[in-house]
């Protein structure tokens, strides 16, 4: 395992690169892999959204990148250096600047430690000298909008939104270049979510951070990310610029996902509902996914025999009349476009 080097031409080397990642829980053959051949890149300073529902494997991908879960196959490169099999100890030794923010603000901070102790723990690992440590802790707290005296208090004294800010500060104090965020706003109220999203947008801009943003909500991803990858049952269904994928989805699953999210305007929502029901996408629990082929075949209105037999490759669509440039894994991607909700209902 090589030590990551700072690349001269930052633009050419992706900050984070995942190729052919496969992760299994349990023995091969017994259960399908949680992550099955997923590939994507995150450029320096870019935010990539990983979107999917439960069982999509998005959190598992995050864990595999962070070293919490061993991949069965595939590679993970950080600034070009292969960290796929690097254990946590090896990562520590190489001082990998990959940090994390988790979903649940209530269990991501140790209740028995003060905020200050929590924030300076990673700095101690990096062997930052003591005086500099407290300086960075104070700076980190300021960057997320919390007062410096928060360092002496315990997590129980803070609200959910504030705790998430502290978790973000914990990631920032190490001055990383890449942060993996695993559903960081899913547990927060709407107004708190907006505050934290704004904070992330600011920090990303100020520090040129590459963010891997794992979420289940496409509209949140649309706000924060430049590109997005849509996952279903461990496989990539669609990937591309966030505008393309969310506004002009090319895969039936993406269409289903966008159609299912309700909007707070009753008349518009009623039209969306009618259009969604006209799609004819089968219920989630209705039938088990086929053993081979496209995992969405059991629910897709366009499914044919080839879909159940052969796994569709991820193919970049041509820039047709509707301007879709995203990559889609579907045997019938042309037809899929026709499923899209009519204009005026999105």
């Amino acid at each position, binding site marked *: 395992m090589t030590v990551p080097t700072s690349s001269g031409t930052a633009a050419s080397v992706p900050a984070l690169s995942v190729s052919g990642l496969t992760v299994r829980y349990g023995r091969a053959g017994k259960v399908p892999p949680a992550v099955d051949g997923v590939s994507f890149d995150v450029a320096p300073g870019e935010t990539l959204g990983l979107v999917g529902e439960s069982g999509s494997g998005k959190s598992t991908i995050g864990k595999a990148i962070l070293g919490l879960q061993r991949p069965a196959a595939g590679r993970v490169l950080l600034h070009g250096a292969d960290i796929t099999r690097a254990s946590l100890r090896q990562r520590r030794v190489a001082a990998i600047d990959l940090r994390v923010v988790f979903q649940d603000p209530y269990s991501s901070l140790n209740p028995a430690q003060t905020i200050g102790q*929590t924030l300076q723990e990673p700095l101690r690992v990096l062997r930052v000298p003591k005086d500099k440590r407290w300086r960075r802790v104070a700076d980190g707290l300021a960057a997320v909008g919390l007062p410096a005296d928060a360092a002496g208090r315990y997590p129980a004294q803070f609200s959910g939104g504030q705790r998430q800010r502290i978790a973000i500060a914990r990631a920032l104090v190490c001055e990383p270049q890449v942060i993996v965020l695993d559903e960081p706003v899913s547990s927060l109220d709407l*107004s708190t979510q907006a505050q934290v999203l704004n904070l992330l947008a600011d920090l990303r801009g100020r520090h040129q951070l590459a963010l891997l943003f794992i979420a289940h*909500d496409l509209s949140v991803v649309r706000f924060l990310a430049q590109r997005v990858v849509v996952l279903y049952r461990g496989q990539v269904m669609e990937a591309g610029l966030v505008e393309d994928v969310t506004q002009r989805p090319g895969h039936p699953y993406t269409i289903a996902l966008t159609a299912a999210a309700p909007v707070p305007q009753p008349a518009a929502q009623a039209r969306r509902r009618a259009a969604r029901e006209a799609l004819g996408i089968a219920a989630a629990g209705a039938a088990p996914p086929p053993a081979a082929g496209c995992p969405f075949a059991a629910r897709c209105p366009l499914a044919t025999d080839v879909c159940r037999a052969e796994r569709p490759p991820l193919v970049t669509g041509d820039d047709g009349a509707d301007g879709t440039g995203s990559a889609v894994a579907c045997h019938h991607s042309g037809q899929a476009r026709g499923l899209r909700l009519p204009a005026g209902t999105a």
Partner: protein
Amino acid sequence: MTAPSLTPPLNLAGGPPAAGRGRPRLRAGGALSAAWLVILLLASLTAPLWEPYPVDDQDSLHTLAGPSGSHWLGTDELGRDVLTRIAAGGWISVGPGLLAVVVAFGIGIPLALTAAEHGRWVERGSSRFAELLLALPSMIILLAFVGAVGVHMWAIMTVLGVLLSAPVYRIFLGQAQSVRTLLYVDAARVNGVSSLRVNLRHVLPAMATTIAVQAAQLFAIGVLIEAGLAFMGFGPKVPTPSWGGLIADASQNVYTDPWLMVPTGLVLALTVIAANVLADSVQTGTGRAGPGQAGLGQAGRAGRAPSAAAVTASAPPDPDPLLDVRDLTVAVAGGPGLVTGVSFSMRRGTVLGLVGESGCGKTMTARALPGLLPEGVQVAGGSVWFAGRDLAGLPEKELRAIRGRDIAMISQEPMVALDPVFSIGYQLTQPIRRFRGVGQHGVDGHRVGRAEARRIAAGLLAQVGITNPRRVLRSYPHQLSGGMAQRVCIALALTGSPRLLIADEPTTALDVTVQAEILSLLRSLVRDTGLSVLIVSHDLGVIADLCDDVAVMYAGQVVESGTVAAVLGQPSHPYTAALLGANPHVSEGLPVPGRLPSIPGTVPAPADWPAGCRFAGRCALATAACADPVPATRAHGGGRVRCIHPLSPWPEPNQADGLPVPRPVEPGVTS
């Protein structure tokens, strides 16, 4: 598959470790117990310095005497002073017990931490070994050890410690595994914290209370086992007194001097009790919340607090609204209000949404209606008119008759809402037979048999969209997916053919595509059966999809209510507008904003609610007049709003997205 969770016989380890606030603290009982133990040990170790008589000093003139001035605890059969012997025997009777604990923890805890960290194979191996140790008959093994090496108390207790390390391992393995699922452990690992430090600073502290409790229990076991061995004659050699030996002596003389039994037994008991109290005072454990949860709802009803201006003294209102809540106040018993002056009503066959963020009181409001508030929370004022009766004043017995039959409820986590040890079929048929049996809703008045109940249950499952009802009836909750489980919960709610279904965040824990299905199901139930639904949610999109009317709540009050079209399309209250603005969904054709409009500050806690508008502190339009109590007035859309300068509708509503733009109104002008 693991063997049964074997625990040392004295107590159950508590459940997952409690996330305490900072460090564990000591309480009064704990301090006393600690004092007793310290004094005991000190007295024993320093006995030669202060004992009134030498340990072996025999006084043949005063044998088997009771307590007296010269012998505070009497004398034994050889005239030796009991107090002296008890004190002298303290260390040898208690110390080895401590040793057993140290050995047991010293082996068990590191093994447990390692097994929890390194997963499957290490865990299997250690667990098998632990089970082996647990299966050995401990007393007999100890005796065999005595037979082999003779009576060396310290060695024997070391062996006991080894035997006890097995249950210690078992308990702490479970705890450590549970702690390691907490995200802060993962965060530390990702940050490169060494494995040793993760265990010392993150995993162990979380288990602190369990460690204390188990230490006390093992100590008790050790002390009592040693006393037993000493009693049988396998204790310390003759000149050294030990408490067990003293009891043996006392038992031989029980006919002539029963008093001897008392101090010898009591000192043992007090020491063990002291250890347990000390450990209990450190833990935050299985305390009670009051009378058993069988009284759930009783505490919620226990006497309505004398309410402030009750608007409800009049006769029941117009029976057309199915549900009419007036001025409802819910408060912690003897504490601040959680919900104040909430009013709304529902017509038959409609869906009303209660929307707001966490802490706004929407869940408390919903639970107050059928009287299902948690312990310590009660209805403190107002009325809940349902089908001509005020539910707020009804005793528990009558409320029970209404629950399920007229008002049903489903909640957020369908997987845990079902009893894991009974099949779905059982859980459905039981209420069916109860509701549709003799003299109840049953039309013919006949008892519903098991087969018929199953048939009805299958029908209900089909009605909620389950494609294979027979198979689901045979299944258990853990075999269902989240969406299916929620459908089952809805079917369960329908067993009594209720008129009103209260749904407390029913789709929050579900995927968005599954959520869409459940909402469709609820909508079709409303349309086809005339069911009315009160849905609580924080998601405005859900409200827009399903509801006819909506009430927006903030800090325990309804700040705006009306039809969804009016409230969400043209909100009157600044909070509603801000909430809509904070929603990241952007409609087609509009650019994604660089920043989401967000509301500064946080929701105030109930204790800090001001007398005036509770949103004023965060509102861009607040003025000095907002500090006075704000009444609910008519809103421009036909609903009600609690604001003295509500937003006015903009001239051309934008049909594409209806996204409102808050536009300040002249202060003092109401529409």
